């Protein structure tokens, strides 16, 4: 079996990141999902160190898709990506999805669990923007 694309969920809230990872992992059974929520000292916010560690945990060689929740989470991820570009030990391709957090996480997890490549996993997350609930 080939390596699966890893998914990193970045939220201002550790509980939100972990809850979304739990849900996405149940719906997309088998997907590799790492949560990076809150600051290093347990407050609301984002931490480049937590995101970086989560990318390493989620990486299995097929690339990693990062799904941020709001505002500064996106900034934190962008800074991290710029650092990774300069890093010769970077864990394969890492991309960011412009997607709704929960729906994007679930759609990405299912697509990754099916063994799809990184562009397809990202497209599934981003297409979630158009999914209706009713």
């Amino acid at each position, binding site marked *: 079996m080939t390596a699966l694309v890893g998914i990193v969920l970045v939220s201002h809230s550790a509980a939100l990141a972990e809850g979304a990872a739990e849900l996405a992992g149940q719906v997309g059974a088998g997907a590799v999902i790492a949560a990076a929520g809150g600051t290093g000292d347990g407050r609301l916010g984002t931490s480049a160190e937590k995101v970086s560690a989560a990318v390493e945990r989620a990486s299995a060689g097929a690339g990693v898709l990062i799904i941020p929740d709001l505002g500064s989470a996106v900034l934190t991820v962008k800074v991290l990506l710029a650092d990774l570009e300069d890093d010769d030990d970077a864990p394969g391709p890492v991309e960011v999805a412009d997607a709704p957090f929960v729906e994007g996480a679930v759609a990405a997890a299912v697509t990754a669990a*099916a063994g799809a490549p990184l562009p397809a996993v990202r497209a599934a997350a981003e297409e*979630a923007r158009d999914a209706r609930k009713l």
Partner: protein
Amino acid sequence: MPASSDVTLKADLHARPAGQLAVAAAGFQAAVRLSAGGRDADAKSVLGVMQLGASAGATVTVRADGPDEAAAVDALTVILAAVTPAG
């Protein structure tokens, strides 16, 4: 000639089986669609499958069109027939 099959749900089609269906469907080359209650969805899209809103007692039709269509219909029929109430 596309393959198809009907399954009557024993429980609501909630998120977890929707994920199982989408992961299974993605493993086939064939285009796979599910329809229920006048709605139709790409079986490879978990959000689309959830949006069907198929509940217990509803009949879901699986249609597949492609080189492995028969196997795709068989696989998804098995998952649909095994849907049980969420724990």
